[in-house]
């Protein structure tokens, strides 16, 4: 119950950092919920990534939390400001589902897997180990990362609750 009162919310195409309690994002479909955690400083960060790469932006990049390639460096920067160390960061992620299956050649349709790939590339680039993931499938997820122990709680309509 006390946990409930200190939940930091992350919206779609948004990112945030949290020092106590937990951090949550709801209704991940093809978006990826990427979480970073510093197990020593107990600092948690989460990004709700919507699209794989800012190269496709037609607007000029106004919201850097929206794209995997810009969200990851920003999340690292924000967490480092709070006292996290890049070398200690561990990543977990969930989401990247393909909500509807299509025999379409439209690349937009398989955005989920592309988001996951792009997030992984960015983690690799910054040398952050990916401890666990729950990605793919065709269902939505709500995820919550606890600052205390870095466990990622994943809920879905079809499969219930699990922790990674």
């Amino acid at each position, binding site marked *: 119950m006390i946990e409930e009162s200190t939940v930091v919310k992350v919206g779609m195409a948004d990112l945030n950092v949290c020092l106590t309690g937990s951090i949550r994002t*709801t*209704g991940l*479909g093809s978006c990826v919920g990427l979480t970073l955690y510093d197990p020593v400083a107990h600092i948690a960060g989460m990004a709700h990534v919507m699209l794989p790469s800012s190269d496709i932006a037609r607007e000029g990049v106004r919201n850097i939390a929206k794209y995997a390639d810009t969200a990851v460096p920003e999340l690292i920067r924000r967490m480092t400001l709070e006292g996290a160390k890049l070398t200690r960061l561990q990543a977990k992620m969930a989401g990247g589902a393909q*909500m509807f299956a299509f025999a379409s050649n439209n690349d937009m349709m398989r955005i989920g897997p592309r988001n996951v790939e792009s997030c992984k590339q960015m983690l690799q680039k910054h040398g952050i180990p990916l401890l666990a993931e729950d990605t793919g499938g065709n269902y939505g997820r709500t995820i919550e990362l606890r600052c205390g122990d870095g466990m990622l709680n994943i809920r879905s309509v079809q499969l219930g609750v699990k922790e990674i």
Partner: protein
Amino acid sequence: MHLYERLGEYKMDVLKEVGNIGAGNAATALSHLLNRPIDMAVPKVRLVPFECIADEVGGAEQVVIAIYFRVEGEASSHLFFMFELEPAKKLLSNLEFFPAGEEQAFSEMEISALSEIGNILAGSYLSSLADFTRLSMSPTVPQLAIDMAGAVLNYGILQYGEMGDSALLIDTKFLEGCDEVQGTFFLIPDPDSFSKIFAALGVPFE
């Protein structure tokens, strides 16, 4: 490229009429199917910020039944028909071959029937729209998901992600009897489709 932020009231009204014609025909189809009167609310056309989109259907985690169609053709779009679970059950109980039961889960037959209802409604929505605009619009095979509203609707707005942080929704609610929401139609035209819709209707669009 913030085209949609510059849409004036007049253009919003045109889009509202687009939703009205489509949903009006779909409501008539539903009314025939159920053999009882179905009302519809005045369509809403709004530019909705991403983080608020799920609130339109009761929150990101609200479990809904969504029947989704990708609309191919000149005015390519995403079309969703969404119910909450209970109204969906009620809708089915109106059909003679599905007796009202206590069961929470949906049988395969019920799922199939809902897809088919969605198919009929989407067909009448789109064909009236296509007649009105003389643009080709054809739905793909329906896909049904029972899942979190946020995750489902998210699928329709990805293309808006490239252009900004909000999406244009044309939605219409169906009512039966006293304010009981039966379902909601969401038409989400692709960003590139607007110019075609406006051109087809003779509305200047720069």
